[in-house]
């Protein structure tokens, strides 16, 4: 247990912070810790967490994805047309939405791997493309998602918020198995040193493509889940999610230079970020001061994460970071 904690130091501290913030939130909430309050909180957190997972897969292979929000907007708009009707139609719609997400991720991956464009600029350009497509589908917000399905996804099962169950399912059914496969290991190898990975005979191009495709998959899921929460399609949701997803992965201990961090950490980071926002809402601070305090806490949290620089004995070590 102690070894486990030591090797997952970043994630462990993120979870401690999250637990503290959550108790503070539930304590300060006027209604208190009811299922209703937990469900709303968890839904908001899961949207950002899915966006952060999408960002994680780009960052882990030393990339960055500025199109996360745009893919969410596009898939949200597709969902507002297709996730409605009979059961089969809805199932088909969900498949199309997720396939669209994977397609967007693959396009990013192709531009990065074969087009040799730096991820930050490639995804900047594709973001414009995806938002354009989303606007083509929904010039103004509208459309509808099947209410029964949306309710099933955003309420609770026996008092447990569905969003939390899904978060746990993603960690246990996707992340834990993936981490044990060659691909999971490859993600870290490519992120740590692409050259070393290549020279060890790893299929670097395939791993990067797969990573971006998985990023697209989660961005698609994020758009889909956003649709369940809002039950409408809106092409303008992107920009906030892109930037917050980056902040979330960093808060969760994922290094932007690649190769360090876990999906669980990214999820924790997203939950922390959203909980801070929710805390603000009931904190009694003047509403006008809240954006400033939020920014201050974000900067502070990141600065604390970087504070171990002060413990470095040899100044040269700082440059490897």
């Amino acid at each position, binding site marked *: 247990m102690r070894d486990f904690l030591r090797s997952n130091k970043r994630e462990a501290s993120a979870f401690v912070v999250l637990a503290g913030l959550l108790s503070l939130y539930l304590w300060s909430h006027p209604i208190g810790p009811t299922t209703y309050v937990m469900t709303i909180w968890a839904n908001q957190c899961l949207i950002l967490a899915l966006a952060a997972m999408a960002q994680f897969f780009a960052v882990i292979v030393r990339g960055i994805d500025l199109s996360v929000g745009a893919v969410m907007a596009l898939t949200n708009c597709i969902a507002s047309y297709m996730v409605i009707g009979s059961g089969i139609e809805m199932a088909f719609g969900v498949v199309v939405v997720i396939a669209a997400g994977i397609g967007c991720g693959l396009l990013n991956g192709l531009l990065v791997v074969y087009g040799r*464009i730096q991820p930050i600029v490639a995804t900047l350009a594709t973001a414009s493309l995806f938002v*354009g497509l989303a606007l*083509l589908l929904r*010039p103004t917000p509208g459309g509808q998602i099947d209410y029964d399905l949306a309710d099933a996804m955003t309420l609770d099962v026996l008092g447990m918020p569905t969003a939390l169950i899904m978060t746990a399912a993603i960690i246990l059914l996707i992340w834990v198995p993936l981490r044990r496969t060659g691909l999971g290991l490859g993600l870290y190898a490519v992120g740590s040193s692409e050259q070393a990975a290549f020279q060890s005979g790893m299929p670097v191009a395939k791993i990067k493509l797969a990573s971006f495709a998985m990023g697209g998959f989660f961005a698609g899921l994020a758009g889909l889940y956003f649709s369940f929460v809002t039950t409408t399609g809106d092409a303008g949701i992107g920009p906030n999610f892109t930037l917050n997803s*980056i902040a979330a992965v*960093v808060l969760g201990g994922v290094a932007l230079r690649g190769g360090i961090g876990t999906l669980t950490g990214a999820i924790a980071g997203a939950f922390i970020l959203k909980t801070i926002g929710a805390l603000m809402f009931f904190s009694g601070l003047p509403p006008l001061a809240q954006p400033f305090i939020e920014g201050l806490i*974000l900067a502070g949290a990141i600065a604390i*994460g970087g504070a171990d620089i002060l413990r470095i004995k040899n100044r040269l070590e700082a*440059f490897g970071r």
Partner: protein
Amino acid sequence: MKTTSPRVPSLDILVPYFGSVLLIVGGSFFFPQILGFAYLAQQLQIASFLGLLALGATLVILLGHIDLSVPWVLGGAAILSTSLAGSGDPALIALAIPAALIFGALVGVINGFGVAVLRIPSMVWTLAINAMLLGVAVLNTGGFNPKGEASTTMIWLATAKLAGIPVAFAVWMVFTLAMAVLLKKSGFGRYLSAIGYNEKATFLSGVSTPSVIFAAFAIAGVCSAMGGVLLAGYANQAYQSMGDPFLLPTIAAVVIGGTSILGGRGSLVGTVGGVLFITLLTSILSVMQISDAWRNIIFGVIIIAMLLLQTLRRKAA
């Protein structure tokens, strides 16, 4: 490593200029007025806002960093200068522009502190600073459009014309020339690229890398603030989130101008070309009166095409 002589402009730098000419010629088939002097002069005027931002961004990107606080440095400078200019006190009105520039430099120093001293990735640190600036602005203005107006100097700088040439364009060029001299004639320019290539090696050769990083971010802050002053003069007011639409075009302009996003390699001439290209592209797309959706799609596709072209050229070389 391939060396590029600074004297001979490499083709990478010329690509955005070719692209701009192509846009003008192509656009003039559909809209003959594009070839008119008035239209082109107006484009130069509009380009100077983006140009000043991209100028600062080039410095930071040469370092191998990125500055995401551009939107609210711009917005903050605009709010500060318009509220000083709108105060009615002549002393404060005279202070409007210097105060805005000092504000930009201060934010730049804070950016530099996080990046150089705390060694936080610039992408996150400047993002957090941007969020805080937004917070300060909201706190100050109550979430409404700030009161105040541009001073006559600001309006003159942004909208006046001298012999048909917009003053804003002249301001942009003066800033660019000053920067070019600084980069070419002082050690600062060489240190900047050296850090972009390899910060550790630069530090080991005895360069005080933190001060270079501080200076670069501060200069970038001043450039963004100047962009804000001009934009406030142009609109004769400051408004919430006036800088947001500028962030991504700024980065796109720098990269299309042939500056490597990884740092170390790039040029101001290229950035000027990139700014002209992006401005013309945006303008022609809006002249064509196509929907927002198609404008976004075409914008994205053309930028991807330009970047792929760069890759192809580099492979051929």
